């Protein structure tokens, strides 16, 4: 078990299987809120379901409307259970808060060094992340 001390962005706690994207994510047009799947062509997570996972990616990109897509995913039961970013930006931070998805950033290590499939626990108030897996080489 590894503990990372990050920064709380959106309140709440969430735990589950980790899904890591080495690339930024655009929720508007990049993710289908009706299925919870990444649909952006050529994205490393294309075709993967992010619903129910702890989703880790460097940062958000694309349109600010992406915030409402996160809200839609939550309404449809397709939201990730928590989000970890290297660096929060307004689109994902806003989306996480209005969708009530716990979110942390700046955990002290690039999220690309965490392994998909590991168990992880995120606390959006304290910013702490508990990770049950190994650190991948940089």
């Amino acid at each position, binding site marked *: 078990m590894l503990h990372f001390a990050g920064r709380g962005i959106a309140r709440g706690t969430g735990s589950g299987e980790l899904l890591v994207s080495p690339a930024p994510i655009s929720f508007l047009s990049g993710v289908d809120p009706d299925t919870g799947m990444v649909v952006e062509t050529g994205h490393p997570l294309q075709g993967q379901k992010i619903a129910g996972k702890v989703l880790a990616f460097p940062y958000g990109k694309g349109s600010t409307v992406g915030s409402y897509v996160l809200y839609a995913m939550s309404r449809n039961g397709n939201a990730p259970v928590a989000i970890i970013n290297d660096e*929060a930006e*307004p689109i994902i931070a806003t989306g996480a*808060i*209005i969708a009530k998805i716990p979110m942390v950033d700046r955990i002290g290590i690039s999220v690309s060094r965490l392994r998909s499939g590991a168990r992880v626990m995120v606390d959006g108030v304290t910013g702490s992340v508990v990770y049950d897996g190994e650190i991948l080489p940089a």
Partner: protein
Amino acid sequence: MELEPGDERILAGESGETRRQMMELLVALGKVFGAERLVRIKSAQVSGASYKTIGKYGLEWLNQLDAKAVVPAVLNPIGMPRGRWEEMGIDRDFAEKQQAVIAAYGRLGIRLECTCTPYYLNSPAFGDHLAWSESSAVSYANSVIGARTNREGGPGALAAALIGKTPCYGLHLTENRKPKVLVQVEARGTDLSIAHYGALGYHAGKLVGNRIPYFTGIRPDPDGLKALGAAMAATGAVALYHVEGVTLEAVKTGFDTNRLEKITVTKEEIRRLFTDIPVDAIAVGCPHCSANELARIAALLEGKRVTLPFYIFVAQGVIDANRATVASIEKSGAKVYADTCMVVSPVMERYKAIMVNSGKALAYVPDMCGAVSRIGTIEDCVRVGTA
């Protein structure tokens, strides 16, 4: 971030779930942008008013919020005039969804004015902190009025309206308002019209990008400043600019511009943007017209009939305060519409080439309406539109 005890209590949920979420959002945005505290605002302008932008989920989110704005707040322009959408040729389904979004904001205590010129309705004062959204309004508030606002996203501006505060970073802080690039305009002896200032902004915005420019060699009036700033916010990401001897901070504070990178813009570079391509519609009021601009248009159209569709976009409050002028303009067959504009209305997509007197519209019409754009002075617009 340091919060006042009252804000901590809101964050703990003592003022209800909506205010708790809005405070959480302001704190998160503050963290993202490195703010140390929140600052009290005098007014808000909320984007995300267009159904086309926020969609059914955005509307659903708005509908479950339960709080009232605590500072005066208005909305960004939407795709149609609220009262005259049928006349403008807007589809009923679009209109009904748009009305639902507006109603949701009304329930939250937002004044139902959809305008990019909120300063004509309730002008801020020098040094006031604001949470405004629309890029040209942000530029005008910062540059012409000397108020302080970042360019807010929709939910952030709504949160600011419902809480009465915004994170204090960026252009709220004096040290971030200094000029970063000097733009010397060589146009002495030329009478620059509002359209010329729009063209100057169109050109300069591409050169300065997101830096704060300091202009010399020009003396625009408030309408010229509005056109200049709006265009620079469209082709660049300029949210604040200074004009030597004209804008308040340049006059009151004074800036040392000696070590700044210098860019020169010539008369010819501005003039080159004016073409005489044929057009099938005229649209003015980007940003929405001032009372002065309306009076000028009325004088030019007096006794004439328009031969092309001729649109004039204005805030509802400005229409209400200038009823006789508006009636005189509409006698010519030109249409004066509130709440919308050539950039955001789907109606404008039916034209192939649109003539405007705005550098901002010159930049946005090709992408937003799929039409070619031509810039001309308001005199040229009237000449072409009544030929």
